[in-house]
């Protein structure tokens, strides 16, 4: 018989159409997955996952046209979320971490032997609108829902959140004006309403609200890691809760998904948890393995996050935000997920 068998032909045609459309209009995302040195026992042992090739498919459903941007071994890629095990489009853009929202893609490029990493900001046509030289090991990046702000975090000392010996630098770029804040450590940090001054402050893992002046992030000082609410115009960070790292705001703005250090000791690993911002009540997800990632929301009910197999292959997993259900692989061989709603 000539050509592909029918099931494949139909599939490919449909998906290719979706993906080609997607690629024409969007860029991709995220980067260095859970490969961040999770350190200690968390990294090498408890946190690893088996090859999911024969695993059960994730029981999540999306409107036709919904896509996921992710990295396929470091290459920006797009997968249809109505067929996440189907063909994916793979670009030549290389990132350690990436994210897409509101028509803007941020890409933290790998550090080369002789070159520093860069932040690339891409538009819907995948054209580079900004490129900023950075220092350190790329770690997190996010884009505001309206695509107007990009945040990044790099390790500038150490390479893991697990120990006490690391240092991070986190900045924010206004995509339209080109203005940027090189380090959120310049912002005034308030705990319990009082200004907290310390030389050991580290900030990482920004997530933006629908109003991009407001954001959330992690601040660490004196051994305490806290969720802060940030105000870009006022240049302030206000602590909301302790033992919250790498926050990710739900699309409806009511909850924060994050990694919670077991026993407040990152050396023991992290649990994927959801915090209700109104009540500060915490709900642990059904994911029992250590997750060292800034999670993403697929919609208001489902989370996506990266886990690494012992051979270094990453997979995007999903689990429900309300703690029910069972984690499942969403996209094999990928990390740094960002959902692209239908029509975006």
């Amino acid at each position: 018989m000539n050509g592909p068998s029918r099931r494949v032909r139909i599939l490919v045609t449909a998906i290719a159409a979706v993906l080609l459309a997607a690629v024409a209009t969007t860029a991709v995302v995220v980067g260095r997955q859970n490969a961040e040195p999770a350190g200690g026992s968390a990294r090498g042992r408890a946190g690893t996952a088996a090859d999911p090739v024969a695993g059960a498919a994730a029981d999540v459903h999306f409107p036709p046209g919904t896509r996921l941007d992710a990295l396929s071994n470091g290459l920006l890629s797009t997968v249809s979320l109505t067929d996440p095990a189907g063909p994916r489009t793979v670009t030549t853009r290389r990132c350690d971490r990436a994210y897409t929202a509101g028509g803007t893609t941020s890409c933290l490029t790998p550090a080369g032997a002789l070159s520093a990493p860069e932040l690339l900001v891409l538009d819907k046509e995948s054209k580079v609108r900004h490129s900023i030289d950075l220092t350190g090991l790329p770690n997190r990046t996010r884009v505001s829902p309206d695509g107007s702000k990009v945040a990044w975090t790099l390790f500038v000392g150490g390479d893991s959140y697990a120990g006490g010996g690391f240092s991070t630098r986190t900045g924010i770029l206004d995509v339209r004006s080109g203005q940027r804040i090189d380090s959120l450590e310049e912002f005034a940090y308030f705990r319990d309403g009082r200004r907290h001054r310390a030389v050991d402050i580290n900030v990482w893992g920004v997530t933006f609200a629908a109003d991009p002046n407001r954001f959330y992030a992690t601040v660490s000082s004196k051994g305490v890691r806290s969720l802060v609410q940030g105000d870009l115009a006022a240049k302030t960070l206000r602590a909301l809760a302790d033992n919250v790292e790498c926050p990710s705001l739900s699309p409806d703005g009511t909850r924060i998904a994050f990694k919670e250090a077991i026993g407040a000791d990152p050396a023991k690993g992290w649990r994927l948890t959801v915090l209700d911002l109104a009540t500060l009540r915490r709900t642990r997800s059904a994911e029992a393995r250590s997750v060292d990632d800034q999670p993403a929301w697929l919609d208001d009910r489902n989370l996506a996050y990266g886990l690494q197999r012992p051979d270094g292959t990453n997979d995007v997993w999903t689990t429900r935000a309300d703690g029910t259900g069972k984690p499942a692989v969403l996209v094999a061989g990928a990390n740094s997920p960002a959902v692209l709603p239908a029509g975006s």
Partner: protein
Amino acid sequence: MPSRRTASMAAVGVLASAALAAGALTVLAPSAAAAGVTFTPTADTYVDATYTTTNFGSSQQLGVDNSPVKQTMMKFAVSGLTQPVTKATLRVHVDDVSGAESSNGGTFRAMSDTTWSETSVTYNNRPAIDGATLGSLGSVARNSWYEIDVTSYVTGNGSFGIGVTSSSTNGADYDSRETGTTAPQLVVETGSGPTPTPSPTNTTTPPTGDPVLVGAGDIAVTGTGDTATAKLLDGIPGTVFTTGDNAYPDGTASDFNTYYEPTWGRHKARTRPAPGNHDYHTSGASGYYNYFGANAGPAGRGYYSYDLGNWHVVSLNSETGMAAGSAQEQWLRADLAASNKPCTVAYWHKPRWTSSSSHAGDPATGPLVKALYDYNAEVILTGHNHQYERFAPQNPSGQLDTARGLRQFVAGMGGASLYGFGTIQPNSEARNNNTFGVLKLTLHDNSYDWAFVPEAGKTYNDSGTGTCH
């Protein structure tokens, strides 16, 4: 070992093997004595010239066709064999769907690149199907098994890539590993009897008595990883190497006495170490040189060499000058020039190549790699990143070089807590970061066997054979 299924599988032989094979195999006929181990691919996919930027890695199918062009690629990690290979057979199953059958099942060839990523290969970035032709299939029928004799290629433990192309406009579709029960299979039979074509590369059982070089880096800590790896050394005779960061956190005399001495210290008399950056946290690495004494070479210098059987062994120091023209690089070139051994292995701390998310590969080690390449050395052992990784033989530019390349290992799984991986780098053939262990090299007259030996209770292994240049 998700990809490996052990079965006492009957062999093969029923079906036509290589060449224009033949009939469908729907039932495996049990045969007498052969002991077979079945491996499924660690990755398989196909590319399609019509969709040049599309990846099909998660598909349940593997297509081959010439119009439009479709090519299939799969790779296998063969390990754990302890006897010579007597027969190796690739089995592929035609998909049970209309159109999967074909008058031409395609041509199966070896591939030198076994390090592509299943979910990022596209037609545009596809690896070359560049190796020897292993066999071809004629007419293939829907929902049937076919076999290709790959004994000439799969001669022992190691990484093997197989690509399939078709010169016909009548394409065939096979089942991929994602199907589970009808995934491609590599059935490897072994036996202790005479092998058909004995040669160093198809002998996985070393003659007894060849020297053994065994060890790891990133070793002694407060945890128990070093205790587990020291126990492995208890059962493995030979020379012990280290690839640096022997005693955490700072390589002080106290660190060596408190952490190293109770574990790896009991093998000190047969240990030839190399220093790491943590050993140099103590000024001049005096804790390291004082602890190992003459076994570490001239005090304070950190590089020296010795011979084991037919092998020249060089311990180097990535914590001091390595530039072309530096004292160390000039010493190395002179040392290699003076060696009369046909095979050479070198070891030091910081890797030239790594897929770790922690420390990038260190280009400063390049001149040492270049000198070793210029003198036709075989193997480089490193640490620094707390994990295990094996690269295919590469030239100093990091390109695959099966003729003269150096095979570099990262053996940083000696005991310190393990690190994550980032983007998998080109030519990386094997990786693990959930198992402490030691790397054992058996040094034959004109070849070597490598084996990752896991801590008690763990199953990860990786083994294979390389030849001297």
